């Protein structure tokens, strides 16, 4: 079965997480573990998928995501919102961009 994502280095401190297929339970668990141990920045490449396909997982992963820039397909921006609370001190910025160049430029600035 095709894995749902691939992790590839972009440059020092930035990894690309490329969505490649439907999420299996194992993939979701592996991503959760990766997010809890990874302290770098993430370029999330959703090219070739639909926003709906990833929406539920992005929404649930949002509180544990590292600093990330998403591009590649249109997503509902409300899934990136977090409830107002002191917990926001510990949440990282996650934003959507129209293009990979914009996403990468923003990530480099973080």
């Amino acid at each position, binding site marked *: 079965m095709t894995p749902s994502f691939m992790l590839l280095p972009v440059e020092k401190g930035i990894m690309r997480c490329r969505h490649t297929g439907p999420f299996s*339970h194992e993939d979701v668990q592996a991503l959760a*573990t990766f997010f*809890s141990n990874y302290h770098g920045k993430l370029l999330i490449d959703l090219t070739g998928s639909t926003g709906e396909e990833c929406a539920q997982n992005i929404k*649930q992963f949002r509180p544990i995501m590292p600093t990330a820039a998403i591009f590649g397909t249109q997503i509902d921006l409300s899934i990136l919102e977090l*409830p107002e*609370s002191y917990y926001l*001190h510990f949440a990282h910025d996650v934003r959507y961009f129209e293009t990979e160049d914009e996403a990468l430029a923003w990530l480099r600035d973080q």
Partner: protein
Amino acid sequence: MTATDNAIHAFVHETGGWVAAQLEACTRCGMCAEACHFYQATGNPEYAPVWKMELLRRAYEQRFTLVGGLKVSIGLDKRVTDADLSHWSDLNYHACTVCNKCSMVCPMGIDLGSLLHGMRAGLAAAEVIPADLMAAVEKQVKEGSPLGMTDSVWDERLEWVADEWEVEIPRDVKGADTMVVFSSIEVMKFPTNVAAIAKVLNKAGEKWTVSSKAREIVNFGFYQGSEENTKLFLNRVLEGAKELGVKRIVVTECGHAYDALRWHAANWITEANDFEVIHITGVLGELVGSGRIKLKPGFFNNDGTITFHDACKIQRKGGHVQEPRDILKVLAPDAFKEMTPNREESVCCGGGGGVIAVKAADPVRYAAFELKIDQVNAVGAKTVTMTCSNCRLQYTDSVEHFKLDWKVTGLAQMVADALME
């Protein structure tokens, strides 16, 4: 009444015979200062626990003793002012985790932790609370959780965990033996821990449930020092337990919540005594010790050195000191090493008591964490495990802040990963 009047009223109310005896017993030896991680980390003499409760002492002395009254009348002592309250609010909410280590070292046996809680009661009565801590309290009053874990967020998130981790999370099961109450920190930040606890309890054949009424174990009223709010949040848990008819309540990974429900609720609310209250650390120890779950020996032996962080309210106060060690001796007999000091003598992570919720406390919180860095590095550990999600949040945040190459995990997660089929 002014804020100061309210605080003094609360301090005087707190100052019964027991407190008077405690305050009179202090010899100003300063040993409590040496035990305080904030004092150790910064050398700031104002962080000495005995000084943090100075307003309580002053209120007692001036109100109840002849000497205190005389000192004020001839100008040798001054009455508490609004500015004092604001300053002591910083000392108590920024640089005290109510970890109670000071009580352990006091040669006079003074229970400083309870007195410091009394200080918070006075500051809460005066409404001199850090704004972000108060916002969290208000959020818990209105939404049931300080982290924005509303009914729908809780519902969706548990469904997601159950689905993706392929684990049953029984909900609102009447007649279950055990009600498990997670902390919103786990649900929001450490969902793997929720899955792990569910997996372990299912494997053991436990008749357990979660309750949609009792869905938050964190108690920000307790951090605040407000008895009224503490009871409000405790009652939500107890009502959930009563409605489902369970015999025991398992507190998952929150130390202060365990303190509030295990000891304070039992003294304040009669119905609390209808239930056994136990921390998940005790449950894990019981399940492994009795053989109800079996672990793969040495499962974590090859992951580098692993150390265990003792949480103030779970290990020092709660007494769940041996269970994690017994479990780690099975999981990583060669890799597990104790940091020093440990067990009841352990140094707090620096984020408990609501300190982690106060942004202005970040510098002192990180300063206190540097003590943990030295202790963990001294044993060469690459993995730190623990049984408190609040400590875990402090660790994960600090690991990132200090760019440390450590893995931070939870004991329940390690147990779940090493379960024998």
